[in-house]
């Protein structure tokens, strides 16, 4: 049965997904790299709010700010230390993507190792932290209680999306970012300082993704080091639905996936008795369908057209 809670969950999950997926699409459009460190931005954001709560700092807005700075800083670090040197050497985008994979694995276990030490220092289980933070209070409308975290999520995601839109569309640096996304060589010829613009873009992308991580933590309420890994395929699915190009379609994709995860599974469960544990299965099916039916042509260095299995040569 699809009830109010499924709908509210869809909204909260979808908004969090949206804030996480938008920067992935943005960074893909500009650099053509599917960035696996995105997972770490999410985890970092989630742990920022969780650990701050653990030491008694329970203001969600402060956590959001710190997460943004941390995520942005990490993204710029990656760009300066790894992506940019590789790009300058003329490496294939695939190679840069694999490097981001390596970074992801490294950071993930670095986080594990740090939490391991914190475990001993703080004497609490840091590998699974219940989020304790405060933003807006919960509101009760008749029989429906709207959780405070949901209100925080709505406010934050609206602000973040608006800010992203304004930066990309109305500022000079935003125009420079779009110019690079549209044509690298042309942008460079026209004197856009690629290095600086890219660093700014990465800061924005990493920071936004970390903010998304905070929102995701608010939704999950429990944070583990696997929190980013567990949703990354969903986030990829969303980005692929957006064709890794359109930010609007990415936002739409966020709600398609979150709707699948909440409402579709509930309907299938009630009508066909599909086990709830098939949820990831369902999401990956969406991903496969999208890739097979509406593939982003030429994306990721592929053939720029559709290879025809049965050529239509007529006589």
């Amino acid at each position, binding site marked *: 049965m699809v*009830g109010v809670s499924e709908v509210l969950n869809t909204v909260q999950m979808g908004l969090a997904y949206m804030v996480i997926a938008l920067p992935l699409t943005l960074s893909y459009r500009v650099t053509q790299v599917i960035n696996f460190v995105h997972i770490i931005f999410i985890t970092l954001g989630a742990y920022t709010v969780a650990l701050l709560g653990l030491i008694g700092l329970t203001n969600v807005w402060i956590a959001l700010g710190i997460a943004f700075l941390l995520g942005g800083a990490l993204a710029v670090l990656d760009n300066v230390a790894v992506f940019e040197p590789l790009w300058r050497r003329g490496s294939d985008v695939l190679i840069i993507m694999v490097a981001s994979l390596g970074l992801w694995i490294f950071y993930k276990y670095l986080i594990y190792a740090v939490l*391991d030490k914190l475990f001993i220092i703080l004497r609490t289980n840091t590998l*699974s932290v219940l989020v304790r933070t405060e933003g807006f209070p919960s509101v009760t409308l008749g029989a429906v209680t709207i959780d405070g975290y949901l209100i925080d999520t709505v406010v934050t995601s609206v602000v973040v999306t608006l800010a992203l839109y304004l930066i990309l569309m109305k500022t000079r640096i935003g125009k420079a970012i779009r110019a690079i996304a549209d044509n690298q060589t042309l942008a460079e010829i026209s004197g856009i300082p690629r290095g600086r613009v890219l660093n700014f873009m990465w800061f924005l992308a990493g920071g936004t993704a970390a903010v998304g991580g905070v929102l995701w933590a608010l939704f999950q*309420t*429990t944070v583990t080091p696997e929190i980013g890994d567990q*949703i990354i395929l969903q986030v990829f699915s969303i980005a692929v639905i957006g064709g890794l190009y359109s930010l609007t379609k990415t936002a739409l994709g966020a709600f398609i996936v979150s709707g699948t995860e909440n409402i579709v599974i509930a309907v299938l469960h009630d009508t066909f008795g599909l086990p709830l544990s098939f949820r990831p299965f369902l999401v990956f099916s969406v991903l496969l369908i999208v890739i097979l039916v509406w593939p982003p042509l030429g994306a990721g260095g592929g053939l720029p057209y559709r290879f025809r299995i049965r050529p239509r040569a007529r006589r």
Partner: protein
Amino acid sequence: MALDTKAIGLLILGLIIGAAIGYGATAFTGGGGATTPSGGTETAGPQEQQTVTYKIGFTLPLSGQLSSIGKLWEKVAYMAVDDLNKMMASYHLPYRFEAVVLDDGTTEEKALQNVQTFAQQGIKVVIGPAASSQVKAVKSFADSNHIVIISPSSTAPTLAIPNDYIFRNTGSDALQAKALAALVNHEGIKKVVVFYRDDEYGTAFADFFKKEFEALGGQAILLSYASNLADFASEVASLSSKVQSEGAEAVVLISFDTDGANILSHAKDDPVLSKVRWFSGEGIHGASELLQPSLAEWLDSINFLGTRPVFISNPLYEEFKKKFENLTGTDPPVFSEKLYDAVFLAGWAIVRAGTYDGEAIKNALPEVAKHYYGASGWCILDKNGDRAFQDYSIWTIKQVGGEYKYVDIGTYSGGTLTFTESP
């Protein structure tokens, strides 16, 4: 031939280097070459007698999924070996034991690798691994290489196999399911939804619970959730509609700590789920998340009850608990008394076998267990090498001195339910 000779050469070189590194590492492990690879060492102790030191291997989840428990278990392991040695000294027995602890990261592959590493060092008794899936992964190697495995916490009914090298110092889940069913029935509830992890632990537990509960005249509806997710909000939403449509009076939650805490924190805000009774097994017991005031208050208000395997009012357990608290400042986590006793069982079995040989130890272990009473109570093993008798305590969350705490309020022993405090 496309294969050049260099390839073979390099391969062989690799083999030799690898073996050399490995060999060097073991030599080092022995600490100054005092250890012969056979595992038994003769050193002149402080006493006049020559003492023999045996190594006991531990493969524990120091990292990964179960690491929050595993880290404390590691302390239990060292504490137990220490206590065992003191006991040996006080009996003037010429045997000493040494713990070799390896981390298996809660993965199957690593558990097997650890047991192999122990085997290479000549260690014949291994305590751990924690999860049933890991025990299965090491089973065939242990059986064919005669390595005795004593798991303190594997409860999967599918591992109840006679005549193998796998021993489990804990009751199979079938026993606990029976206790939990009796508890729910005692509370006068006739219809429940069982909400369980979709892994081996949850599935088996739920199946047994349904069987036992329906034997008592109740009705149990099974509903699984994906345990590999981090987000359970929508699972809880489905649970809510299920409870409402079935008109169930209670939910039985079969979970581990992280997922269970997450589920409860969502359920607290659900209009349906916050009004029904909740019951649980041992998986969630001890999770610090549940003691947070907002959650604990709700759990207290709905009279949340759970079962957990424990030996009740046992002075040895109290002593163990106190010692552990002094050492670490926290309560002993689940299964730590089982782990503690497993070390003593292993030690005495080696002494009884009189030789550091896998088969002899395997044969001695059930005999030793028959006469062993430890922090976890009587450790008698059944024909499958699993703990035959298991008592359970009934736990809840209550305010004690202004703070919420886990409190045991009753026992389930030998088929009868007794409350020491009113629930």
